[in-house]
């Protein structure tokens, strides 16, 4: 009777080990895949920006600095090709800079009704909103998946298997840029800009 009970316990433990290990591996791959998705969306955004800048350039001679900032941030972001644990931080810094440059550009476009009157800009605005959303949602999915993965590998009793599955805590994609964190200033005075 005793050996049978022992065998039973062994089988249960083995089954749990396999399930926990496979669960961790599945989550790890999901996290990697979610990270690749961000890359895809960022690449898409890099490709879109030259078109956008060309479309507004003619009408925006007087806002050269804003456009320059966007182009520069874009080129900076394309250049970053880091890998490893530091990679995420570097990429996210460059991309966040690009995001805020784009946001400034959108605000500027809003201020020129003659720019918005041409139908092209409406479409471009939609495209840009969508692109920004896609990047944001890809980031959200990555963070959600990575959080789930991190929680799982730290939680008892899965934490025992974490070493076996070579699980490392995944870095979250954080918003570091102060400008993006801060609450935007809303001016309701309707005064014309000087």
């Amino acid at each position, binding site marked *: 009777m005793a050996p049978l009970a022992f065998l039973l316990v062994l089988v249960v433990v083995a089954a749990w080990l396999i399930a926990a290990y496979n669960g961790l591996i599945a989550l790890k791959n*999901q996290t990697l895949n*979610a990270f690749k*998705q961000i890359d895809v*969306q960022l690449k898409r955004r890099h490709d879109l920006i030259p078109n956008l800048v060309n479309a507004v350039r003619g009408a925006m001679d007087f806002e050269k600095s804003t456009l320059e900032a966007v182009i520069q941030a874009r080129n900076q972001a394309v250049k970053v090709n880091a890998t490893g644990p530091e990679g995420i931080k570097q990429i996210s810094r460059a991309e966040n800079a690009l995001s805020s440059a784009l946001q400034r550009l959108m605000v500027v476009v809003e201020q020129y009704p003659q720019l918005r009157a041409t139908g092209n800009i*409406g*479409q471009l605005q*939609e*495209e840009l*909103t*969508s692109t920004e*959303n*896609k990047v944001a*949602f*890809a980031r*959200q*999915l990555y963070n*959600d*998946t990575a*959080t*789930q993965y991190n*929680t*799982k590998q730290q*939680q008892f009793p899965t934490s025992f298997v974490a070493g076996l599955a070579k699980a490392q805590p995944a870095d979250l994609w954080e918003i570091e840029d102060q400008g993006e964190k801060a609450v935007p200033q809303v001016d309701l005075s309707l005064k014309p800009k000087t």
Partner: protein
Amino acid sequence: MSDEASLNLFQQQDANRRRTVVLVAGFVAFFAWLGFGGDYIYYLITRDAPRQAYHHAFPWFGIGLSLAAAAIAWYAYRTGPQKVLWSTGAREIVDPRTDKERQLVNVVEEMAIAAGVPRPRIWIVDDPDPNAFATGTDPLHSHIAVTQGVLDLCTRDELQGVVAHELGHVKNLDVRLMTMLAALVGAVALMHDGTSRVLRPGGGSSDERKPSPLVLILLVVWIVSWILAPIIAQLLALGVSRKREYLADAMSAQFTRNPLALASALQKIEGAEAPTTHIKRGAAHLCIADPLGRRLTSHEGLFADALATHPPMAKRIAILRGMGYAQLKQEKR
């Protein structure tokens, strides 16, 4: 996504896979019962017939009907989504023409990224009443359809909420169960209509011998189950869809992080009085809001519980608002 939510998702997917199997098995078993039951009754009737008369010994009806039911179920699985879309007269957006269509395509792409599923195919139903539904067999083969009314009435954020709700159905495999149900309910109704037309005139055979009470009872049960088949199928369709709507609302909030947008979209959908005429009863349980009018879903109670395909709108909106305010409170801190 908290750990609990993801666990919930896997449980929901498993439950939906299981329920689809049970549904198909039940469908085939029901037809087997009709077939073999008929065989047995026929056998009992012809048992005492004279030697040279026909004796019903081999269960042809049972085998035939079971095979037919299996074939129908397989056919429904393969073509269910197309049939549902066809019944609503939806047209696919392959390459968007208007700004609104462009926006819809963009929003679906965004929400597919947020949900982590492949982009579904996108359809528009030319109906001024706002409504939306999803169909398909799994996330790789899925379709999202919205009415023109949704495009006209909703803002971008609200559209996002509605699309995310539908993608919630796709992700937790609700679409598989509900599409199968729609297809099988349709098949039962069609066959019932067809056979009752055949059975009615030729029913009474001029047999003067008295059948035994056992045969009579069997016959009565058998006929009653024929008559009840479409009603049972309809009730089944009503029962499965209500709880899912709350869950899909919650998933929408998780994907968009903006439950208030879906709440206001639901309010607009509720406010539109006209029924969605393009969506027939057979596909009603697939929709975000009951397309057959909103009277039954305005309150919760015994009557509404038994007959409505959807939970009360006011309750759904209240739950979403609760989520929204909790989120705001957390951000303030």
